Every structure is written in C-alpha cells, then in structure tokens.
C-alpha cells in the first residue's frame, strides 16, 4: 500500500490582512514541496474567499500593540486609522515584493490546494456560494478532520 503523502491542514479563521497571508504562503509552499494541502476557511476567514475581496482585507492599529509603528489606542480608534494602517502595510508588502493575496490564491488553486469554505459559517453569516470565488469546495468539520487525520501538519490562523 502506498504511503500517505505529507499533508498540511490549515484552518483560516481570521479575515484581516495580516492573518490571511500565513495560510496562503504555507499552503502554496507546501504544494511546491509535493505535499497535499487543504485550507479550511471558517468564520472571518471566509472574507478571504469572497469575490474581489482578497486584496481589500484590512488591518486595524487598535489593540494591536505589535504593529511595527506603535500607535496609542486612543489614536488608533479614530476614523481613517484602519485605512491608514492598511495602506501602510500594503505599501510595505509591495516594497518587499510580496505577492498579492489574490495572486497567492490563484497559485494555490492552480497547484491543487483544496480551498474549503465552511458551510456552517456561510449559514451563520448569510453568505451565499455565488459570493465566493470559483475553484473552491464547501465542507464541514468532518471534511477537515478526515484530511487532517492522515500524516498531516495541522495549523490554525
């Protein structure tokens, strides 16, 4: 019997700009290393799969003490600060030549990374299949667990 290929099973539960990168970078790198990869998008992670939304994700400076440029919360909460922090982070990404999220998503799908949208979250948040991009599947906890149960690195972001 053939040995199960290495797998990486990732749960993407957050939809901010900074939290969307790790799942996509790891899954695409894993696929390039002949590993089977699945990303299970749940809760706010579904934002990453919404049509036209991947490059519009945001990062807030408030309650984010690890931001490279420290901003006091009382300033961070002001209108326009999330926009500014997001623009700043995006400009650093561009300067460092980091691929856009939409590009990484395309590469992931092209490399046979399984992109699974959580059915339950879609029901909870009223998100319809048509709102999500092509090239994905819908699934539930058991779908994720079956994949993760065999020779898999499992990570949550």
């Amino acid at each position, binding site marked *: 019997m053939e040995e199960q290929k290495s797998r990486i099973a990732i749960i993407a539960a957050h939809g901010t700009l900074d939290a969307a990168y790790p799942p996509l*970078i790891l899954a695409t*790198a894993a696929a*390039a*290393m002949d590993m089977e990869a699945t990303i299970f998008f749940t809760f706010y992670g579904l934002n990453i799969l919404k049509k036209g939304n991947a490059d519009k994700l945001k990062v807030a400076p408030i309650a984010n003490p690890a931001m490279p440029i420290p901003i006091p919360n009382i300033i961070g909460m002001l209108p326009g600060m999330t926009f500014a922090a997001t623009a700043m982070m995006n400009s650093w990404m561009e300067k460092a030549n*980091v691929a856009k999220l939409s590009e990484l998503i395309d590469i992931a799908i092209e490399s046979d990374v399984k992109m699974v949208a959580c059915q339950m979250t879609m029901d909870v948040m009223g998100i319809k299949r048509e709102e999500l991009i092509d090239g994905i599947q819908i699934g539930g906890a058991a779908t994720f667990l079956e994949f993760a149960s065999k020779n898999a690195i499992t990570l949550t972001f």
Partner: protein
Amino acid sequence: MNADQVLDCSGMSCPMPILKTKKAIDALQTGQILHMISTDAGSIPDVDAWAKKTGNEVLSSEAKDGKFVFFIKKLK
C-alpha cells in the same frame, strides 16, 4: 557550471522563488540542471529544504554579487 535552464527570481519574495523553482523543475527532464537566481536571503535554507523534501539535488548554492545563485539537479 552548465545548466539546461536559467530561472531568475530576482526581486521575488517568499514563497515565490520556491513556487517558480518547482514549476521550472517540473518542466525539465530527469538529470537536467536548473540555474536559479534569487535576491531573497531566505531562499538559501528554503532551496535546501525544498530539494530535501522533493528528492532533488542542490549541486551548489552561493552568495554572489548581492544575489543568491543555485544549481539544482532534477533527480526524479
């Protein structure tokens, strides 16, 4: 060293050098050599790790004129 293919990943950041390398190696025949150039310092350990995992061979990896130059042989 003679290479069958040159892949210039200058300016690309992780994970792109590895993704492009994989694609380039897939297009080669077993035994052929890929000459890959990168400006990402992380690619030195990454190329080694990638080759180890995929069963290919890094013939040489060195820093040269501010770039990182790899010769990778397709073994499978």
